[in-house]
């Protein structure tokens, strides 16, 4: 499903990715682990073409994502849900509207929006918060809302970049369980984290990065 082929990203005076090659098949739950600055975020941004590689190619199925025109890139992004460490919710929209916006973006009807949004909010246990703005929600609630937004259009891939970075252990556990549930339902999940505990909780494939290189790619129990 995802294929990184000798991908490098070099900023002015720093190497963010150094000749990275790996592939991910559909339905996998892959954790990318490494210290801050190891290149995890750059790598996840490459998949949605939020960053361009200096060298190499990134494929989503048979699509070279960095060769896409703006319109086609928009279509690709609709097939991917993204969750960020800092949530990146739309601050002047309510919880309901944040999710409705993602549905409107893909052209869903008002009827579908009215029926699906309450359902997904219930799934992440935010039914009672649908009229609240992001700044009226706790960190854990904001992250659950971000996940709800990421999954609402039933994407083929979820990318979660340090989704538990700002959360306490209880909220971290909840988020990991939600991501596992999403993966169980058939969605591919890529999780970038520096938290070993989270990886142990998941117990799936782990790609370890250091100084922009992939230094290990293994099942957690191997």
């Amino acid at each position: 499903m995802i294929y990184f082929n000798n991908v490098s990203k070099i900023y002015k005076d720093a190497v963010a990715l150094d000749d990275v090659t790996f592939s991910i098949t559909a339905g996998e739950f892959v954790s990318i682990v490494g210290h801050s600055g190891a290149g995890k975020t750059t790598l996840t941004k490459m998949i949605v073409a939020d960053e361009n590689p200096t060298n190499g190619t990134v494929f989503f199925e048979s699509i070279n994502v960095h060769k896409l025109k703006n319109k086609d890139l928009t279509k690709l992004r609709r097939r991917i849900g993204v969750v960020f460490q800092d949530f990146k919710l739309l601050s002047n929209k309510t919880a309901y509207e944040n999710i409705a916006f993602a549905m409107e973006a893909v052209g869903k009807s008002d009827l579908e929006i009215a029926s699906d949004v309450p359902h997904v909010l219930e799934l992440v246990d935010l039914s009672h918060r649908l009229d609240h703005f992001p700044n009226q929600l706790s960190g854990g609630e904001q992250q659950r809302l971000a996940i709800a937004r990421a999954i609402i259009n039933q994407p083929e891939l979820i990318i979660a970049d340090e989704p538990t970075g700002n959360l306490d252990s209880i909220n971290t556990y909840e988020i990991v369980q939600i991501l596992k549930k999403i993966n169980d339902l058939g969605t591919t999940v890529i999780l970038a984290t520096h938290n070993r505990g989270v990886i142990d909780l998941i117990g799936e494939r782990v790609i370890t990065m250091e100084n922009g290189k992939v230094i290990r790619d293994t099942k957690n129990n191997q």
Partner: protein
Amino acid sequence: MTELKRITKAGFTNFTRSGLVSFAAVLQVVNTLAVIVTIILLQAVLYSSLNVIKDKVDVTIYFNVGASEARIALLKDSLLKLPEVANVSYTSASEALKLFRDRHQNDYPTIAALDEIGDNPLGAVLNVKTKEVSQYESIANFLKSDNALVLGSSDIVNHSNYYNNKLVIDRLNTIISGAQKFGFLLTLYFIISSIFITFNTIRLTIFISKEEIGVMRLVGASKMRVRGPFMVEGAIYGIISTIVTLLLFWPATAWFGRNMTGFLGLNLYNYYISNFFQIFAIILLSGIILGVISSFFAIRKYLNK
């Protein structure tokens, strides 16, 4: 259609929820529109003053005593056919005498001398007004040219006062065209600087949302879906600012109309009311175009990803 409805609704929602930011943007657009209305009113005052001055300038053609009215009428007709001429008025010899007597009714020696002569010593007069002050010279030249003064009119013309007044006319012409050029440059400067300030204010309001714009793009929103609500917001700034500006100018022009009409030579309130729909259309269009175009360009750099 659904997309348009959603974009419009999002624009309105963003406007109401942005509170202070929207207020600041509206205030800035009001400033710009107020500058435009002020300039419209100042131009009206300037042109009305210039017209009063222009109206005071004319060229008078004095005819010989006894010149036939038919030939004078012929010259009048040929003058009226000139595109530069706005108006030609004829004063007969007897009317000229009557006016002379009226003007000098308290000047006994002059009236006595006139009575002594017996006959009317004054000739008929044509008073010529041109559309522009600069055109008097061409009228003077026309009077000198043989082919223009058909049927030998040159022998009935005594003289014209153009060359006596030439210096004053030339100076007035310089002042009027200078005032018009200066007014135009001043207008251009104020309008351009106001547009730049407004553009930057709107750019700042969009800069605040730049991260959210990136997020919208990442969740798969099309460029139009992201840009549209900002443009609607821009249009709302324009509409509200138009209403506020026109309301502010209502009492302001009324005050000027009551207290400054003598000084300005124009009742600004009457001018404002009688041209209200034209001013409204100019301001509304300027406001909306300013808001929408500023938003369109301000958001462009954040949409590229």
